[in-house]
């Protein structure tokens, strides 16, 4: 058996001997590093998400009815609800757009809920031709729908076991419609939970002829220029609000910043308390094991060699705690993004390094004081039992 293996063996034996204390330390370290990991994962994946949404959002202006509260968030990031259903008049929108003289790609949307198999599902009426132009990242598994067909979001499809070729019967307040599923769509955003059908069809089923809930526009402009165009347009839409898509993203960025701040505070508090509890536990351990330390020194271990054994112990704890913290932290991150942002967070493998780093740092820093006493301990006095 070589020295390294023996050292490992010894450390394992020590940790196994003090099972309770080991478990406690592991829990503390795992908790602290899991919070740090969760913070990192949430901010990392959400920031990326927000940036992605902004980038891939084909439309850069959106028109919504004035009184309808915008569902806060962009694309996949939903944090709110539309309060009272208020609609835009399709004809008026078309006229206003023509009047404004703005060259813009447009896409009309109508949101509603339809009854399907004893439950309500969210549906959106769109013009698929417009969609293909504006939302070029849509990738449909199956075929683009023709008349009497619909596209199902992947989450929805999974929930109801729908696949291309299936027929579904949807009941609205006015009519009931039979649609064939032509394909499924997965964008990673809110589209995954929606059913898309042709706009006129939905208007008929909902009894909302000529009504729209959202208009998305792609104007070739950016920055200050875009703001001006939005202002010009706004003049033509008295009963509606024209906003930049970037603004929406900013809202979610603001929320993200708040969540991050809160998590950072909690993490800081937990890190500090975890550090001090590591110190406390380690000091007790060192005190209890002072005879052992004295013996090791009497057997010929130099102060450094004895220190190495105890540091290895702390490091192993830190490592294990870090790995556990990563798993736990990923779960916490998932929970937070699910509940706060209604989106699923990514699993970022390299965050295991961050987690282990935090945990190791905490374990070693926390046991710094006890380690100094290990280093200084006088073998004669400790063996005598002082």
């Amino acid at each position, binding site marked *: 058996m070589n020295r390294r293996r023996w050292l490992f063996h010894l450390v394992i*034996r020590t940790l196994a001997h003090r099972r309770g204390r080991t478990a406690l330390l592991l829990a503390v370290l795992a908790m602290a590093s899991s919070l740090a990991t969760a913070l990192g994962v949430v901010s990392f994946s959400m920031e990326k998400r927000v940036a992605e949404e902004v980038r891939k959002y084909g439309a850069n202006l959106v028109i919504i009815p004035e009184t309808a509260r915008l569902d806060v968030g962009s694309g996949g990031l939903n944090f709110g609800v539309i309060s009272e259903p208020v609609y835009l008049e399709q004809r008026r929108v078309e006229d206003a757009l023509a009047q404004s003289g703005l060259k813009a790609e447009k896409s009309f949307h109508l949101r509603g809920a339809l009854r399907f198999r004893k439950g309500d599902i969210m549906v959106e009426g769109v013009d698929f031709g417009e969609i293909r132009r504006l939302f070029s990242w849509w990738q449909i598994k199956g075929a683009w729908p023709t008349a009497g067909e619909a596209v199902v979001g992947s989450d929805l499809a999974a929930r109801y076991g729908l696949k291309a070729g299936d027929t579904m019967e949807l009941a609205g307040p006015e009519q009931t419609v039979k649609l064939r599923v032509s394909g499924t769509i997965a964008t990673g955003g809110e589209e995954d939970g929606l059913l898309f059908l042709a706009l006129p069809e939905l208007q008929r089923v909902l009894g909302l002829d000529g009504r729209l809930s959202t208009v998305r526009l792609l104007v070739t402009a950016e920055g200050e220029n875009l703001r001006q165009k939005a202002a010009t347009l706004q003049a033509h839409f008295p009963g509606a609000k024209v906003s930049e898509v970037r603004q929406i993203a900013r809202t979610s960025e603001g929320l993200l910043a708040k969540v991050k701040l809160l998590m950072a505070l909690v993490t800081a508090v937990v890190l500090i308390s975890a550090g001090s509890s590591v110190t406390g536990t380690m000091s007790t351990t060192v005190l209890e094991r002072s005879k052992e330390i004295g013996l090791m020194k009497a057997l*010929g271990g130099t102060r450094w060699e004895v220190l190495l054994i105890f540091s290895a112990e702390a490091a192993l704890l830190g490592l294990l705690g870090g790995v556990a913290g990563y798993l736990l932290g990923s779960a916490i991150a998932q929970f937070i993004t699910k509940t706060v942002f209604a989106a699923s967070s990514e699993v970022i493998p390299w965050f295991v390094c961050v987690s282990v780093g935090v945990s190791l740092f905490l374990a070693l820093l926390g046991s710094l004081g006890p380690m100094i006493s290990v280093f200084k301990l006088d073998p004669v006095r400790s063996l005598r*039992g002082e």
Partner: protein
Amino acid sequence: MAANIIETSGLTRSYGDICALKPLDLRVAEGEWLSVMGHSGSGKSTLLNIMGGLDRPSGGSLRVGEEDLLALTEDGLARFRRDYVGIIFQQHHLVPYLSAVENVMLAQYFHSVPDEAEARSALERVGLGHRLKNRPGELSGGEQQRVCIARAIINSPKLLLGDEPTGNLDHKSTLMIMELLRELRAEERFTVIMVTHNQEVATWGDRTIYLDDGVLVREERNEQGES
């Protein structure tokens, strides 16, 4: 007479105002078995610790083997201990969560590299071949002391120090331990210095010195030890 393994002159040790060891001149020959007797607090344990490189004298000179212990650094002393000294304690000081073999291997680890086969054979030599995997808690006092002896001799020390090794043992175990030590000494030819306050145990040595209040008061040769 063989060369001296230990030579001290004017050796003192004081803790603050308390003088545990008055200037002491002592020579121990290589291969000798020296018993040190005295009351509690007579400085005999201090003497033992100093000669084992565990403690530093306050003054005087001390040579063990080729090493001048006063000149060694802290880590140098540790290296001296691992190469020269084996210690048997009254309280055994075995690591409670390691088995008998592992306790012996711990000494090997600090000395050089652990070698399980060798640790086993050392335990077999002290008659514990059947209790290799037992923890100290599962062993009797005499057995624990034998593990302690195996651990002390595993690195072939030149100097075996015993700090009242039989203090906690009954008469029968004491005899067994002393017999074992004598056998081992015959094979390994180490020097033994044993602190005790048991007159009978002291007579197992070649020579007994009596300490009182840090002063060497008497010295006598033992007939039985010479045999």
